[in-house]
């Protein structure tokens, strides 16, 4: 897993051409509602998930994997649902902020505990916390609706009541804006001093401590960011689907996020979105044929990537591109 490649632009490949390609990708996404309206919802889901995957990616940069980040995705979604239920006619931006803040707050509480751990403990304790929340959602059904979950009514947008199509279109473009904005932010954060200190956890905490920095605090900074990103993704997903269920925090969801992060290219923000899009497409069309063995395919594919293509899709992509330019 190469992790610091963004700090020094990959030598040799052509950054300008690559960025053009990414811009073209975003423009293409923006055109989806006109070119292929039946894909709009699917892409919307992928973008929501992609944000959560970026959350997992952040942690991978510090060499850590969380098997429970669906927790923050779900907490945010449920906060959105509760707020919509208790404040009728709530604004979209209201629940977006409430959900994200809630996820960040949960990230702080869980984070204060889990940042003491690395590796196995970190991964598994995150899983444990998500299982705890999942059980709460299932058991306290008089509040949470149990396995059936809670339906969300359509929020207003800046005070306007939108029809279904208009709201979906609004949501779609909001998702694109958030993806571009938060993706950009995260990439900048990785390159910033705070982000760099966070990433040193992967290679040497002893030195970090001897620079006068608390490794736990450095870890917490990244953990908060990752929880908040999952929170934004969760709200987008909840409003796009119109219902939240305990499945949002089920471990399979967390596994899916880790899978996509590794698929896209562990540590790469763009890879996270690329991975999420590919994943969502394949899932939608393949699970009709392979629904019974879907997880098995994911698991097998995960093994193949880890053992044979540790750079993920983005690694292959950038290598091909670098070769195309005739540089090494």
């Amino acid at each position, binding site marked *: 897993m190469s992790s610091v490649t963004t700090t020094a632009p990959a030598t040799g490949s052509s950054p300008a051409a690559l960025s053009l390609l990414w811009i073209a990708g975003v423009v293409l996404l923006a055109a989806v509602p006109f070119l292929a309206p039946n894909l709009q919802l699917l892409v919307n889901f992928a973008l929501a998930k992609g944000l959560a995957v970026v959350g997992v990616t952040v942690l991978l940069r510090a060499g850590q994997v969380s098997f429970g980040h669906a927790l923050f995705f779900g907490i945010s979604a449920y906060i959105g649902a509760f707020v919509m239920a208790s404040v009728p006619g709530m604004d979209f931006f209201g629940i977006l902020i409430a959900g994200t803040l809630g996820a960040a707050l949960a990230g702080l509480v869980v984070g204060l505990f889990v940042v003491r751990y690395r590796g196995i403990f970190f991964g598994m304790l995150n899983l444990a916390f998500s299982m705890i929340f999942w059980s709460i959602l299932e058991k*306290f059904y008089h509040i949470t609706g149990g396995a059936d979950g809670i339906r969300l009514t359509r929020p207003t947008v800046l005070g306007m009541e939108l029809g279904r199509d208009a709201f979906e279109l609004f949501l779609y473009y909001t998702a694109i804006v958030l993806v571009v904005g938060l993706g950009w932010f995260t990439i900048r954060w990785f390159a910033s001093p705070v982000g760099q200190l966070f990433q040193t956890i992967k290679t040497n905490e002893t030195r970090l401590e001897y620079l006068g920095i608390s490794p736990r605090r450095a870890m917490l900074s990244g953990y908060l960011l990752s929880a908040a990103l999952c929170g934004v993704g969760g709200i987008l997903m909840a409003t796009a689907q119109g219902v939240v269920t305990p499945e949002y925090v089920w471990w399979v969801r967390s596994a899916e996020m880790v899978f996509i992060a590794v698929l896209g290219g562990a540590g790469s923000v763009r890879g996270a979105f690329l991975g999420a899009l590919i994943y969502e497409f394949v899932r939608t069309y393949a699970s009709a044929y392979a629904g019974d063995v879907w*997880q*098995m395919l994911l698991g097998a594919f995960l093994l193949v990537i880890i*053992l044979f293509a540790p750079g993920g899709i983005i690694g292959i992509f950038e290598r091909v591109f670098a070769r195309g330019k005739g540089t090494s």
Partner: protein
Amino acid sequence: MNLTTFLLALFDGVSYAALVFIVALGLTLIFGVMRILNVAHGSLYAIGAYATVSLVGWVLALGAAPILAFPLMIVSAILVGVLIGGPVEYLLLRRIYDKPEVLQLLVTFAVFMILEDVQRLVWGTQPYFEAQALRALGNVTVFGVTYTVYQLILLPLVALTLLVGLRFFLRRTVTGKLITATTEDREAAQSIGIDADRVFLLTFVMGAILAGLGGALASPTTSILPGMGADMIVLSFAVVATAGLGQIEGAAIAALMIGMGRSFAIYIWPEVAVLVPYLIMVLVLLVRPEGLFGSPAARKI
């Protein structure tokens, strides 16, 4: 809480702790020797349970005596260990011992995802229940509380035997000493001619058998459902983490704490019962980050 409910909770706790301990023992053994946390351990537990139900159901349908269920449990456990554990170590884990911990974790996680679907393909999603073994041993009455011999006596006995047996095996037998030596210093062990690859394979198969045995023994006491593997990996991790990774006796005590905590919660506040194991783990780790019996690994600089 009157005496009857108290005793019921106590017995529930003991039998539950025994089961969880057997699974956790495999997990902590593998970790102690190989430094790998096998996330797929929960699936091996589930498959052990499914395999037992199928085998027992099939053999008893042929008219065999219910008591035959017991050897079949052992057969199932060994099948799980050898047929699944063996290849997983041999084909996969062997390639990643020198890789970062995160990658190892991801690999066993991928195996977990695969095995969860394997169960569903083979056994479907409907619940199974096969309690012949439980009934075959009958009940005992203690202070007016009637409880199954299987859960109150057999399970704790098996757990205790395994604990003592494993201790003896590791400390007194040649193979056990080879394992301990490899655990302490893999390179040194190899330099004196120990085949570390075989030691790892053996350890992993043993750990997998313990997972399978846990499932086999659990099968008469519960419905067998998809998802039980996911629950068990988190639960046995909670036991192992509470004890301290790699601590064998500690796992027994942690299993008792967690088992008791959960069973008493069921009688007092059932909604939170499933949370109790995690609460215990979190509380212990807050005070002792390395677990009750673990010691902090100071990095030499």
